[in-house]
């Protein structure tokens, strides 16, 4: 029954993540435009602020969810042989997961240093 829920839920997640990303990017760009960090240290300090660190982490989670729903839709539309579809979906999932872990590492290391 889980896959049956993947229609509405996937659509909702895609919409919510899109709204969040739009707001976050707006905030991010606005900050860079109005109060750009003058040095690398300042940039790191800003990124390490709890609010910024948390919202940035959520942004990348939203990005991955959004990309997963979108790519899954494309594959479901065009790739009909089940075996090929499964392999492609697995590749996409693995790729997104790897990117997610990589981003997590970058964000964590930024916080640790």
């Amino acid at each position: 029954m889980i896959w049956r829920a993947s229609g509405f839920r996937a659509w909702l997640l895609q919409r919510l993540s899109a709204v969040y990303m739009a707001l976050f990017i707006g905030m991010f760009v606005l900050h860079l435009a109005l109060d750009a960090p003058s040095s690398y240290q300042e940039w790191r300090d800003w990124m390490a602020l709890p609010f910024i660190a948390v919202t940035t982490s959520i942004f990348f989670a939203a990005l991955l969810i959004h990309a997963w729903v979108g790519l899954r839709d494309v594959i479901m539309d065009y790739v009909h042989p089940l075996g090929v579809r499964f392999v492609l979906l697995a590749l996409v999932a693995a790729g997104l997961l790897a990117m997610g872990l990589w981003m997590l590492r970058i964000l964590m290391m930024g916080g640790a240093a």
Partner: protein
Amino acid sequence: MRFSIYRYNPETDAAPRMQDIDLPDADVAPGMMLLDALRLIKANDESLSFRHSCGEGVCGSDAMNINGRNGLACITPLASLKQPIEIRPVPGMPVIRDLVVDMSQFYHQYRAIQPYLIVHDPEPEVEYLQTPEQRDELDGLYECILCGCCSTACPSFWWNPDKFRGPAALLQAYRFLADSRDQATAERLEALEGPYRLFRCHTVMNCVDVCPKGLNPTKAIGKIKKLMLKHLI
């Protein structure tokens, strides 16, 4: 007046071909519709097959692809068309012969949304009452003539005609969801769940672009999603 018409008779032809046909300008009267011209052509070559019935955009029989756009031949003025006028069957459907396509999948999807009122209460003794406002909710939905122009213009329906309901059926699904007399909202929404039936719609809006009755299936699909959200919360 020059035409280029898709011809295919599976009993005799190995492959479809485009046939160039000239209709003498003397035969073309001002204000003539495409269907009139096709009938004149058929008078000369009775092997040309196409569906038509009412001739005034009500029955929805003569949907075809006219210069790359789906429409009804009977309400498409000849004067509005660039020559040579290219006529093909509506895309994405199995061709039975020439411009006649097999609409089975389209009707199957229509049947699947249960296009009739479902009422659990005992039937009223006289009639179902509806306020004028409740009746207004059905405007822009009930006018659909099921010609198939929208669904056969929809890429999602081309790729998954067996699983995706298509814009015509989804417009009708909303027509019954929006009806104050219907009592099966939850069941109808449940039946549209899953990644295919409703959610293959990517709001390409080809359906809105081609609908000869000026209806808006994309908007109806959006309202179904809104209803689902309402039921979730």
